[in-house]
């Protein structure tokens, strides 16, 4: 049974192709329904799910995991992130934040944990319109067109510093959405020359 489940989800993910963030087309809807049927036990999956209903198994996209012992601290992840999403290289608009200590030879990466109980989503006054959860992958993402930049989500994020930030010029929130809709997956992982970034598929919701 398990391999069948896996291939169904995988097929679903691949079928999504290049959907625009925030949009839901018929193909995705049907595919999502298929996944939900395959899971069986997850009732009402075709509707927008509530956080409580997200189980690890239904959250296959996972989250970015940073291996600080491999990381060289170059920051290509952040530059590529900003270039891909914002069409310009601006460190402040990168979805992840690299913290370097050049005299210690150490670095860490602040990036969204894709919480199972997402504070940003819960505090969003326009949830499911501005701050959404991908029905298939469980990724939390911002629909930039619908967000008015009230910043409640940044206060709702349990992490310090908050992993969802405000774009001061465009007046909307932004966060890591695992490059939702990008064929090759998250661009930071693709271009990390040190292999320090991976996606942890099974999201336990607990920080490593």
């Amino acid at each position, binding site marked *: 049974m398990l391999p069948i489940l896996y291939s169904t989800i995988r097929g679903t993910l691949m079928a999504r192709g290049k959907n625009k963030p925030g949009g839901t087309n018929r193909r995705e809807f049907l595919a999502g329904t298929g996944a939900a049927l395959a899971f069986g036990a997850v009732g009402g999956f075709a509707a927008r799910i509530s956080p409580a209903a997200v189980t690890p198994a239904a959250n296959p996209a996972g989250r970015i995991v940073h291996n600080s012992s491999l990381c060289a601290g170059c920051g290509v992840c952040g530059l590529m992130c900003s270039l891909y999403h914002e069409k310009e290289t601006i460190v402040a608009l990168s979805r992840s934040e690299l913290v370097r200590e*050049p005299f210690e*030879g150490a670095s860490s990466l602040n990036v969204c944990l894709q919480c199972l109980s997402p504070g940003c989503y819960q505090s969003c006054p326009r949830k499911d319109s501005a701050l959404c959860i991908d029905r298939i992958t469980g990724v939390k993402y911002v629909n930039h067109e619908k967000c008015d930049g009230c910043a409640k989500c940044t206060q709702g994020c349990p992490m310090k510093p908050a992993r969802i930030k405000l774009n001061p010029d465009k007046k909307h929130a932004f966060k890591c959405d695992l490059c939702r809709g990008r064929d090759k997956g998250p661009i930071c992982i693709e271009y990390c020359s040190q292999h320090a970034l991976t996606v942890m598929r099974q999201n336990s919701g607990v920080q490593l």
Partner: protein
Amino acid sequence: MKNAAGWAGKILWVDLTKGKITTVPTTDFEPEKYIGGVGLNSRIFWELGVPKVAAFHPDSPLLIAVGPLTGAPGPFNRAEVCGIAPQAYPQELFAYSGIGGKFPTELKYAGYDGVVIVGKAEKPVYLLIEDASAAIKDARQLWGLDTFETQKILGASHAKASALTIGPAGENLCRFAIILNETASAAGQGGYGAVMGSKNLKAVVVRGTGAHKMANPDKFLSLVAERHAAGEWLAGGAQTWGRYPLCGEPIKEEMRSNYLKRFAGCHGCPYQCMGFYDMPGIGKGAQMCVEAWYGLINKGSAEGYWEGNILSQKLGINNYELLGIMTFVLAAVATRAVTRQDLGIASIPRIDHAQEPNFGSPAVHHEFLAALLNGIAQGKSPLAQGVARAAEKLGQGARRIYENQYPANGYLSHHLKNVASALHWATDTRDPFNSCHDYMYLGAFPSVADHFGVPSGDVQLKSDWVGTKVVYERAERTAVWVQNHQSLKNSLPLCEYASMPATFFHPPHMDIRIFESKILSAVTGIEYDVGRLWEAGERIWNLRRAIMVRRENRDRKSDALGHLWFERVVANEQSLAAPLERRQWEETVTRYYELRGWNPQTGRPTRSKLVALGMKNIADALSGA
């Protein structure tokens, strides 16, 4: 040009004497023609009237510039420091030195293509740049501190900022003092740390929160994706010099297995060519190729190797000149050409029968290093002026040893192994260090050489890139090719490590200029084809030549190599296979001038050549000079 992306659009102009800071539009210096980095700096130097002052004179400008590619992800994040270099010999020459680390991108994100610093502050100061605001701050508390300590203190008060700093060597006007960023990124050659010191400028601190804008980001991403697909983005294994010290086997193994903590490198670059080492009791820091200088002659211990490295970075001393000093001191003492008193260093190791430095116990070894480094950094030893000037004072025997190591312009030999690179040495204002790999690979790979119509087979990749034969034919073509390419690399900028033929962004079958022109077009929105790009490289080299002619009376006579290179094979594994033959050499120089479009008698760029390169303004001023 008005709407071109890539460039930030302004240059910060700092007068330390008057305490005045202004900005100047980058467009005043024809950036579409001179790109950035060395090209832009040279153009600014020309606009300043090519000052004929000494390096430590207040009017001697310190020029720092990035290029249009700086700020984008990739091996583009370098700055070039230019100015009158105190290290050059027998006279100070206008030269350049590249630096990576975090500083270059921060400067671009702060909104500047360059910083021009003139004048001299009354008291020690540092320059603080935070996006649009810039200020001259009191640095009396920082004066005398080492480069690491200075950066840590500055980092505590200016979070996330990055700093160019000098150590005691620069403060004491040591002629080979470096400018350091973080632990191992330095503007090494030239002695620009001392130029900063002469201005009472301890540091340049910059924090930028702005953007690097591209005209065509999708095109840029697709070009990078092409290189990635060809396996050239993750080519981490090839950049091994810093990761694996150049020292001998036992120390190398010990460093790698016990002290290598992780890899490191410049901001935004995928190659991360450095190793970060942590040795308890001695210190932590990164290391790249030339920082391994001590390993080349140290037969002692890993501790001594690492102590030499960390101490020289902290004091702000050029590791590569230090290699020359170490070999000079050991040879001079061994042949009794000089005494300890002459050198102003109390403890100098004995040389044993095998002509290896014998350090005896680790204590002697450390004592020698500390005495040498501190003596140099505090200007107490004649060696603080560099080997060239020390040898002049220390007599004929010392002079002979110097000539053996230093082919031209007062710089230590490096990869002078074919006639083409000898030509480059003779016609540059410093060692062509950051182009030596082009010479290696052009000589070693017939496919690369054929592609560019240059001679091949005069360098062998096996046996440590030794020159195998002396080939004069078409050597001028190789030199011109590499010089134009070097000018581009130093101006786009593109890291030397990332642009070596046959590696990284430069597979053997591919003309790297195609990639360079495409990426520059994508970033700036100005259509550069290979021809236009190449013309820019040639233009930058001609502008530098015009500066040499106007400021330093450069002529055919001063385009010279030391006489030893015509007499015998200089005892160096990086040398020519046979001595140069005078008549053939002079013929090659003539062919080089002709290919350059310069006057073969004087070595001056002709007016028609400059006009053809779109440099009528330069030609007018040069003929009036």
